[in-house]
């Protein structure tokens, strides 16, 4: 048999190869969708690797907590967590125990109350507990836009220099805690 015919016979397998490559790609995509590593709807944060934009927010008066401003997010003693939340946000209730756990472990959790009413926000903290050591109120949602927030909850981890190292849009899950949040906090504290 000549080389030309053998090459031609090989061509018969080309569609099979294409199907295999397509199938593998599709399988990896589905797996990524399942474990969350691939999210076609996810909006990657432009803040990663950067310090946060300048901002200042009013406090939630009734809580008695100090408010949050960009000056509070520079030259830190350790990594901090910044959480955008609202009382009307159901996933915020789901992730709340994880924020409480971080707070109990001594990780500073700063909150930004997004487009909320003060009494509702206060009622949420009274009912579910308060994990925040600082809490700013962003009623118009402008600071959130400056951060590139597109929904609540959204959570950021900043290192000592105030550089954003991690961002999660959506509720924090136990898997995220064990696979990403805790290892990163340990690394940043070391």
């Amino acid at each position, binding site marked *: 048999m*000549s080389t*030309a*015919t053998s090459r031609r016979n090989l061509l018969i397998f080309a569609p099979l190869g294409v199907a295999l490559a397509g199938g593998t790609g599709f399988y990896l995509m589905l797996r990524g969708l399942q474990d969350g590593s691939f999210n076609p*709807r996810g*909006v*990657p*944060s*432009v803040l990663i690797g950067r310090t946060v934009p300048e901002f200042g927010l009013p406090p939630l008066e009734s809580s008695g907590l100090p408010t949050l401003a960009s000056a509070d997010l520079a030259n830190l003693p350790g990594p901090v967590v910044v959480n955008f939340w609202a009382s009307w946000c159901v996933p915020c209730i789901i992730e709340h125990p994880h924020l409480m756990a971080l707070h109990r472990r001594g990780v500073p959790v700063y909150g930004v109350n997004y*487009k909320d009413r003060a009494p509702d926000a206060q009622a949420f903290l009274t009912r579910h507990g308060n994990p925040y050591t600082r809490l700013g109120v962003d009623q*118009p*949602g*402008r600071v959130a*836009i*400056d*951060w*590139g927030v*597109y*929904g609540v909850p959204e959570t950021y981890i900043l290192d000592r220099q105030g550089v954003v190292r991690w961002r999660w849009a959506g509720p924090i899950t136990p898997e995220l805690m064990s696979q990403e949040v805790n290892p990163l906090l340990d690394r940043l504290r070391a």
Partner: protein
Amino acid sequence: MRRLALVLALLASPALAQIGDTTYRLEDPTQEQRAREIGRELRCLVCQNQSIEDSDASLARDLRLLVREQIAAGASNDEVMRFVHQRYGDFVLLRPPVNTATMLLWATPALALAGGLFAIWRIRRRGAAAGAGVGEVELTEAERARLARIVPAQDSKGDHRA
């Protein structure tokens, strides 16, 4: 006639109601026009397949207001786009920018066209070389010798079954 006009006006009212959110509309029609052009280029991050002009999400409303504020303050279209792009990244642009990550995306039509032309060229060249389209393969020496042995011995009736 007057009744027809009334009917037409009533029929048109839902269409008028559809013209976006009138809460934040700029006084100046040319500025408003610019704001809409920009808004149509920006993706609503919440619903994702709508522009902020078309979306009813509260973030889209905020961004519409923001675009109008900036235009009223004298910002150029580019400046407004840059402002939003700096905060939300490439994802917010409904028309993705050409960069290394999107090169393949933008090149796909050209690549597909080139691939098709190449395939046509290959097929036509092969067709021309082979005439009927089969047996373009040259026989090897061994095959030629074998053929020479077979052909003279062939039955004149053309019956090949041995």
